[in-house]
């Protein structure tokens, strides 16, 4: 019987010391596992109430609180009561509860295994392509198990990054048990998953365990589309899929969720954001061609997000001073609480206790802290081995444009897929600033200017890329799939030369 030995693939040209000369030796070359870890976008992870397996109902709500399966979306969003109050209860909790990171957890197995169960089924198309891909020469040295890491997207991106970093450790450990050799993973991100991946890498200590990150349609510096949707709901003119449409067609429906979760607020433009025209003021209100509001000048947090969106002018005030362009109308945060106008002292007490706005500010501060760390004034932090794909040629909100019209009788600031900010001008006339449909270039959600935020010149082939693709189904686009496989290949080759650096030769 020959004596068996294992040699790591990158050491096959090294001398094997200590072998007995009279024996027959069998040398097995050990391949290196490089797990391909997919990190989904916001709402791409299924969430459940902790302590349940996601099945059944409790308190009239499903234990599975978020899923992208058609049946779930139809039952619990599309054809449910589905107003702001219902949505807030579904994702955030009862009216007396504010955001709690422990309210929901990823609906996955324990242990999570490959993690596929926890994420949107549509992603499986691309994951199966990766799983079945013929890596040719690279297969001699490497194996590529395909994982997905879902996360609680309602929570702080920092928490999601911390969770991802921990999962990377677990995945490496698990892969090492199988192949004997695994040190690093490759991350493949979609949308918000890009922020989570960069957070894990740059802020949560996982950088040295990551070969590189392949980003798809990442809102690197945020997207005014998040603002647009909190004002007006998800757009109707796009060919949006069921899930996107079911998220809500009006500001009240979307704000009841997004305004109450730090994860959602992280998708807003950060302090580095600029429109496709390179200008920092991405909220623009024009009256007959004259720009009457142009925000932010420097800090969207102070100049837009922390301003209460008062959408009706105060009676008798000429001109009115209400800042309808603020992000959040406080009345939409907790729809089951009505602000009193004097009268019942107990209603006044309830109003004194209602801290929805303060809670929103706390959640906003969480998002701001993450933005400031991940995208300091010097620019967004990328992993050294980064390749990014940006979607273009779909109308996207790179700026928010409102046009002023006279207003004689309209009262509803939140018609479906629209927003009207009412005010009184200097001449004492009732006016309305009407939100315009997105018209910039991008993928329908992320504008081109933000998608390219981590692009850099002279990256290895296939390089960063702009593709005509939509945001949500980006990884269902064949060109994107081909590019992503090439990007992964480039990173694996980098890993090859990283391991073989003492053998010489060009990477």
């Amino acid at each position, binding site marked *: 019987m020959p004596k068996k030995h294992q040699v790591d693939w990158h050491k096959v040209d090294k001398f094997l010391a200590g072998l007995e000369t009279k024996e027959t030796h069998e040398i097995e070359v050990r391949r290196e596992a490089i797990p391909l870890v997919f990190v989904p976008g916001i709402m791409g992870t299924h969430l459940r109430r902790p302590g349940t397996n996601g099945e059944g109902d409790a308190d009239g709500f499903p234990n599975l609180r978020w899923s992208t399966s058609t049946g779930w979306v139809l039952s619990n969003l599309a054809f449910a009561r*589905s107003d702001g109050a219902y949505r807030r209860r579904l994702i955030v909790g*009862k009216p007396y*509860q504010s955001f709690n990171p422990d309210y929901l957890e990823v609906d996955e197995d324990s242990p999570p295994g490959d993690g596929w169960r926890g994420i949107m089924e549509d992603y499986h198309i691309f994951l199966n392509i990766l799983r079945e891909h013929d890596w040719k020469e690279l297969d001699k040295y490497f194996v590529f198990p395909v994982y997905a890491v879902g996360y609680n997207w309602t929570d702080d991106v920092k928490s999601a990054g911390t969770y991802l970093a921990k999962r990377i450790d677990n995945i490496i450990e698990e892969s090492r048990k199988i192949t004997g050799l695994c040190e690093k993973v490759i991350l493949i991100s979609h949308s918000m998953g890009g922020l989570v991946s960069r957070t894990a890498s740059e802020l949560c200590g996982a950088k040295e365990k990551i070969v590189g990150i392949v980003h798809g349609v990442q809102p690197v510096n945020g997207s005014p589309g998040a603002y647009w949707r909190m004002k007006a709901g998800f757009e109707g003119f796009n060919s949006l899929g069921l899930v996107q449409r079911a998220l809500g067609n009006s500001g009240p429906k979307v704000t009841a969720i997004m305004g109450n979760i730090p994860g959602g607020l992280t998708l807003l433009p950060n302090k580095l954001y600029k429109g496709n025209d390179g200008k920092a003021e991405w909220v623009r209100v024009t009256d007959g061609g004259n720009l009457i509001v142009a925000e932010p000048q420097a800090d969207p947090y102070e100049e837009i997000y922390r301003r209460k969106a008062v959408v009706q002018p105060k009676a008798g005030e000429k001109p009115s001073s209400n800042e309808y362009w603020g992000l959040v109308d406080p009345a939409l945060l907790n729809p089951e609480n009505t602000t009193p106008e004097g009268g019942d002292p*107990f209603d006044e007490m309830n109003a004194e*206790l209602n801290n929805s706005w303060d809670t929103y500010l706390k959640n906003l501060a969480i998002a701001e802290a993450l933005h400031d760390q991940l995208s300091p004034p010097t620019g967004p932090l990328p992993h050294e081995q980064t390749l990014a794909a940006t979607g273009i040629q779909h109308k996207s909100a790179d700026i928010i444009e409102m046009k002023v019209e006279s207003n004689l009788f309209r009262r509803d600031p939140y018609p479906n897929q629209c927003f009207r900010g009412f005010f009184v001008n200097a001449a004492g006339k009732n006016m309305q600033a009407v939100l315009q449909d997105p018209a910039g270039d991008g993928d329908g959600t992320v504008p081109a200017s933000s998608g390219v935020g981590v692009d850099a010149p002279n990256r290895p082939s296939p390089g960063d890329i702009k593709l005509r693709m939509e945001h949500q189904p980006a990884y269902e686009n064949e060109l994107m799939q081909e590019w992503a496989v090439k990007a992964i290949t480039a990173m694996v080759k980098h890993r090859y030369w990283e391991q073989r650096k003492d053998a010489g030769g060009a990477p």
Partner: protein
Amino acid sequence: MRWGLWLVVGVMVNCAGEKRVELTNKEAIGRFRVGVPEGLTAVSRSQMIYGVEVVAEPAQPGAWDAKVAAQAGKIVSRPSLGAGVAAFWYKQGSDLILEAQALRDGVAVSIVRDAPEGKEAVAEKLASAVLENYKPGTAAGFCLGPGAIHMGPSLSESVRMNWQLLGSGGKLEFSTQTVTEPDTKTFMDVEEERGLAGAAGGTLTVLSERERILAGLNGREIRILVTLPGQEPQVRFTWHYPGVGRDGTKPKIDFVAKDSVSGQPRLEAVWEAMLPSLEPVPVN
């Protein structure tokens, strides 16, 4: 018999003349009373007044101790809210939450309410008022089942009750919520729903749509049939009353019933028995 269930004399016959469904009891919830047909089992119920969630149930030995134990380690104080009232504050995430319970004639009246730090005294005063104003019986007030809170009406009231239709997947829901402005949107946008069904590869058919007055309130009833690939078609009936802004006695009201199309006749019978029974409960 459950506390507060009113026996109804007589039998309801539905409009279509189909299978008769008897109202076995009447359930008082919030500012309304509704007949509950046979074959329905309540699966959840919640009430909120002045932003305070309040529940009244037959007292169960050890139930309060279990609540305390469930928050063990998070309890920050045990305030005194008056004779016969047990209470504690606990932290949940960044929330500071007050739970309290008073025993009234064999009924445990429980409240839950949050407060920002520094405002605990206001929450305690509000919670105490809600507990003090509980009285057995549901002839008037904000009804909880065995009794009612005799306050308000508040501008921040909501209730929700869900039933399961025995022997099928049918579900019914009744909910009310005070509004700042009339809600003219919930369950009113059939075209949007048609678009959602289309996005799922299915179709939506409006079976009927009409104004319908219940308890003197003019709402809109819509019945739809949704057909999706690979699934049994589903029917959904809704009745939506938009409410009157800042009027606690006229919250928005929704009845919703759903079942597969094979359960439609029975669902219709239950629906037609239940809806006409809606009636307001006097405030005082």
